[in-house]
């Protein structure tokens, strides 16, 4: 028994004493733990495709999203077109006026071609048109009374009404000519050609002096 130890002695002593082992209980616990996930992994059967229940459309995200998008679209379309739902009468008036204008045009062309005086149907057509125009202007006036639209717009509509009042007392031919002249004057005023507008107005008033009685202030100012 030497009192000096070598590396080999140390290794031998260590090996001699290295006899400890984990308990059988601990071994069993770890082996069980190792087998559990393996068995679970291999034994879990895959669901057949046919047995997978397809969710209803309203339960899916794309179903809910498309429903919401449809609602938004319908709402936008309704709000955008809601004005047209309240104007059937107006559209009817326009259609009626258009028909009357066609009748007048036909009548006038026949007058020019044949030199015959204005017949009853043409007179009736013009009167109807004037009547429709009055009714329309009245509706506009009513709306303007209650609404908050700018006064310029209302004034413009009243000018049109005054024009119509004067025209209603005239012959159909004269009425058409006056209306056309007034429109021309309005165009000239819009383009700041006051002198030309005044000349046209003077010519018109010389030809139809009765227009002075209910001439709108706008045209009166032009004469000053």
């Amino acid at each position: 028994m030497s009192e000096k130890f070598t590396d080999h002695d140390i290794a031998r002593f260590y090996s001699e004493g290295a006899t400890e082992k984990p308990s059988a209980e601990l071994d069993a616990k770890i082996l069980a733990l190792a087998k559990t996930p393996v068995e679970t992994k291999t034994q879990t059967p895959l669901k057949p495709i046919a047995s997978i229940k397809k969710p209803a459309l309203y339960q899916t995200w794309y179903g809910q999203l498309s429903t919401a998008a449809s609602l938004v679209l319908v709402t936008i379309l309704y709000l955008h077109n809601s004005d047209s739902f309240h104007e059937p009468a107006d559209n009817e008036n326009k259609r009626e006026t258009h028909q009357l204008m066609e009748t007048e045009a036909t009548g006038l062309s026949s007058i020019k071609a044949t030199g015959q005086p204005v017949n009853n149907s043409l007179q009736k057509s013009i009167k109807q048109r004037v009547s429709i125009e009055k009714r329309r202007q009245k509706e506009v006036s009513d709306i303007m009374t209650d609404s908050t639209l700018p006064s310029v717009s209302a004034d413009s509509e009243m000018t049109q009404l005054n024009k119509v009042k004067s025209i209603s007392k005239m012959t159909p031919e004269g009425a058409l000519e006056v209306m056309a002249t007034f429109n021309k004057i309005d165009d000239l005023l819009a383009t700041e050609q006051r002198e030309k507008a005044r000349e046209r107005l003077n010519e018109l008033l010389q030809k139809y002096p009765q227009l002075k009685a209910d001439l709108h202030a706008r045209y009166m100012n032009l004469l000053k």
Partner: protein
Amino acid sequence: MTEIVDESLMLQYAQGDGHAFTALYTRHKDSLYRYFLRQSATPELAEELYQNVWNKLIKARSTYQVSSKFTTWLYRIAHNELIDHYRRHSTENKVITLNVEDKETEVPNETEAGYLADLQQKNIDEQLYLSQQAKHLKWCLKQLPRQQKEAFLLKHESGFTLNEIAKLVGESSEGVKSRIRYGINKLKHCLMHKMGKV
């Protein structure tokens, strides 16, 4: 040869072969258990750490790749587990170690006295001598600094080479070599001290 089989067994286990794990476990359980037992304050703590390592291996089986030896991978997990434990319970561990030291210093003296009486009376044989030295060595091993103790165990308990130990603990080969050298010298000195007491 054994190492190749180890890796194959682990791959088989990763594919769901439970028997492969049993073979691997049987092969490495004792040395890994002692690795923890020698470095833990109590056998209960050693069992807990030992179990944690196997749990981690089981959980990580699907990500296992044969990039190194299976035993290197296993003991790296064990080394990290031990380091984590020391970090978590650094204060507590010191207290336990000190208590163990006190306990160890008292108990062997009593047992040694008993053994000495037997040695003188029964004309001790080689086996008894080895047994006695082994017992002393275990006590001496407990007194080693943690890093020297781990290096010694990885070499003499688990059979790793210097390079493998260096790779495993993240140190240079030279550093590991000197750790083992210092550790063995301390063990020798400790054993001589024990014998001197005799």
